[in-house]
C-alpha cells in the first residue's frame, strides 16, 4: 500500500537533489563558483551537475511507487535539513566574494615559503622582464622572481590589508593561491609604500604601480612596491592565483 509518509520522504529527496541541481547550475553560470573553487576545476562541477540530474531522474521516476513499508520520512527530513545548510552559506559566500583579510590574518604564517626559488608549486616558464616599461606581474610571480625584479618597474593587482604592525605609510597587497579550493588557499602578499597619503580600506582591490624593492619582514625578504600610482579597480574575474 502506498503510504503518505513514503511519498513525502521521496518528495523530500527529490527536493534536495533539485535544490542542488539548481545550485550547481547557478554556480556554473556567470562563474560564481570561482569564489570557492579553482577555475580549472569547472569540469568537476559540470560533471557533478550531470550526475545530480541523473540521480534526480532516477529518483523521480521511482516517485509514487508504493513501497512495502514506510520510507523514513524523518530520515529524509534529517538529510534534507543537513543538505540545505551549504546552500544557505553558498549564498553568503557568493554575495560577499572571495576570501578576504580575515582569512589572510588567520592563514598567514611567519616564514612560510610559497615559492621555492623558482621551482615547486609554480613550475612555469621563465619570464624576461623589461627595464623600460612596466612589468605586469602577479603576486606569486613577484615572490618567485623577487631578486630578478629588484629595481624594475612593476604593476601588481591585489587586495588591501592594513597591518597595524607596519609603518603608517605602508600596507599590504595580498591575494590567495589555491590549488583546488578556498580551503587550501595560501596567502601571498607584498608591501606597498605609496607616494601619496591616499588610504584604502581593507579588502579593496587595487592596482599598485611603481618600482620593486626588497625589504625584510620578520627576518624574511619580502617584496616592496614603491608605488607611484595606486588605483582602485574592480575585482578580477578570478580572484585567486593558481600555482599551475
Amino acid at each position, binding site marked *: 500500500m502506498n503510504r503518505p509518509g513514503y511519498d513525502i520522504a521521496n518528495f523530500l529527496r527529490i527536493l534536495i537533489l533539485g535544490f542542488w541541481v539548481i545550485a550547481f547550475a547557478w554556480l556554473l553560470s556567470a562563474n560564481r563558483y570561482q569564489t*570557492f573553487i579553482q577555475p580549472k576545476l569547472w569540469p568537476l562541477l559540470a560533471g557533478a551537475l550531470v550526475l545530480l540530474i541523473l540521480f534526480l531522474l532516477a*529518483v523521480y521516476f521511482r516517485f509514487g511507487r508504493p513501497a512495502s513499508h514506510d520510507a*523514513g520520512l524523518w530520515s529524509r527530513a534529517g*538529510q534534507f535539513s*543537513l543538505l540545505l545548510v551549504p546552500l544557505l*552559506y553558498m549564498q553568503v559566500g557568493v554575495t560577499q566574494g572571495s576570501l578576504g583579510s580575515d582569512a589572510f590574518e*588567520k592563514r598567514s604564517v611567519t616564514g612560510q615559503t610559497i615559492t621555492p626559488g623558482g621551482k615547486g608549486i609554480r613550475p612555469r616558464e621563465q619570464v624576461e622582464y623589461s627595464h623600460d616599461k612596466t612589468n605586469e606581474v602577479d603576486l606569486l610571480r613577484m615572490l618567485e622572481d623577487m631578486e630578478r625584479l629588484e629595481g624594475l618597474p612593476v604593476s601588481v593587482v591585489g587586495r588591501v590589508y592594513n597591518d597595524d604592525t607596519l609603518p603608517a605609510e605602508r600596507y599590504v597587497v595580498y591575494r590567495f593561491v589555491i*590549488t583546488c579550493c578556498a580551503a587550501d588557499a595560501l596567502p601571498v602578499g607584498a608591501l606597498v609604500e605609496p607616494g601619496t597619503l591616499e588610504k584604502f580600506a581593507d579588502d579593496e582591490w587595487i592596482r599598485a604601480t611603481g618600482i620593486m624593492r626588497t625589504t625584510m619582514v620578520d627576518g624574511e625578504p619580502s617584496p616592496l612596491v614603491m608605488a607611484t600610482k595606486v588605483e582602485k579597480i574592480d575585482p578580477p574575474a578570478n580572484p585567486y592565483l593558481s600555482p599551475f
Partner: protein
Amino acid sequence: MANLPGFVNVNSELSEAITPTAVTPAVPKARSKLPGWSLSAIAVAVLMAIPLLVAGRTPTLHTLSVTFVSIVLEALPFVMLGSLIGGLIEVFVSRERLTALLPRNRTLAIMAAGLLGLVFPVCECAIIPVTRRLVRKGIPFSVAVAYLIAGPIVNPLVAASTYVAYAGDWLITFARLGCGFGIAVFIATVIDEWFAGQKALRPGGIETLPAHTCGPSCDHDHTPLPSREGLGKGDATDHPTPHPPVAPPQGGTGFTPLPLREGLGEGDATDHPTPHSPVVPLRGATGGRRTSTAITHALEHAADDFLHVSQFLIIGAFAAAASQSFIARQAFVDLAETPSITILLMMAMAVVLNLCSEADAFVAASFRNTLPLAAQLAFLVLGPMLDLKLIAMYLSFVRKRALLVMIVLMCVLVFAMSLTLHHFAWGGV
C-alpha cells in the same frame, strides 16, 4: 561459490539459513518512533545555520561561508562519483566475482588492497561510498580498511601532486606513499585480528544498505534469467517484491541485508524493501532493456548513497571550516618548540584543515622553511586518512569502538614513524 578461507561473510549467518522455501521476505514494520539520528541531524542542521542568523555580515562568517562551501563543493563531485561506482558495483558485480579477485591469503589480500589505489585512484571522499559498497558485497572489512586508508595516499595523482609541490623531491614522495601503505596494512591487519567479520561495522551502516531490488509494483521484465556463470544468485534485478531471496546454488553466498534498523544508516535502507539478487548480467535474455533498467537502479543506489554520505560530509566540512575560520595557523607554528610537538601540531592541523589529498602537499610544502620535514610528512600521511569530515563519514558505517582503534593507531603510527624518520633518517632536519 564458498567463501574464501578465513574470510568472514558479512551476512554469513543469514546466508547459511537461506533456502528457497525457508525465507520469507522480511517486510520491515513501519516505525512509529522518531529515529534519534534524524532528529539529531535536524538539530545539527539548525545549529549550523545559527551563525547565519546571529553573526550578520562579519568577516569571520564570510571566511566560514567560503571555506565551508568550498570544502563541500570540492568533495561532493567525488562523493557522487564514488556513489556511482558503488551503485554500479551493487548492480553489476556479484559478490563471488568480487571476492574471487582477491588473493586467498588474507595478508596478501590486505596488501593488494593497500596498493589498489595505484590502479584505481580515488580521493578520500570518493573512497567511502565505494568502500561501503565493497564491504556490503562481501569484501572483508579488514581488506576494505587497507584500501580505505591507503587509497587516498598510494595513488598516482597524489604522488604527482606531492612531487610537484616539493619541487621534484622523490624522497618525500616515496616516504609519503610508503608510510601510507605501511600504516594502512598494519591497521588493516590489526582490525582483522580484533574485529573479525562485521564486528567493526555499524548496525545499519552496511548491512542495511539497499540491496539491488525494485518495488512491488515495478513494471520491469520479471522473467527469470537463465543461470549465469559466477553469479551466486538465481535471478537478477527485475523481480516483483516482496519475494523470497533465492538460495545460492552450490553453496553460494546469500545476500540478504540484516534486518537491523538502528543507527545512522536507517534512512537509506527503507527505499529498497526486499533484498534479493545483487547482480545484473550485461548480456542477458532481454538485452538492452534489462541493462538500461539496471543502470537506472544503479543510479537509484548511487543517489541513496550520495544523500547518505553527504550528511556526514557536511557536518565534517562545517567543523573543518569553523576550525579554519577561528584558529590562526600561526598558533600552531608558535607552539612548535620541539620536533615531537611540531609533529603533533602538524598532525592536529591535518585533522583540522580537511584538505584534499591531491592538494594538501602544496600546503605542507609551504612550511619547508618553518618546520622539520618529518612534521610535514606527518601532515601528508595523516591528512588523507583522518580529518574531521572523514571521521564523520567513517561513522556512517564503522562502529565507534573500531573507529576509535583506527584513529588511535593512525595517530600513534604516524607520530612514531615521523619521529623515527626525523631522528634516524633525516638527521633532525
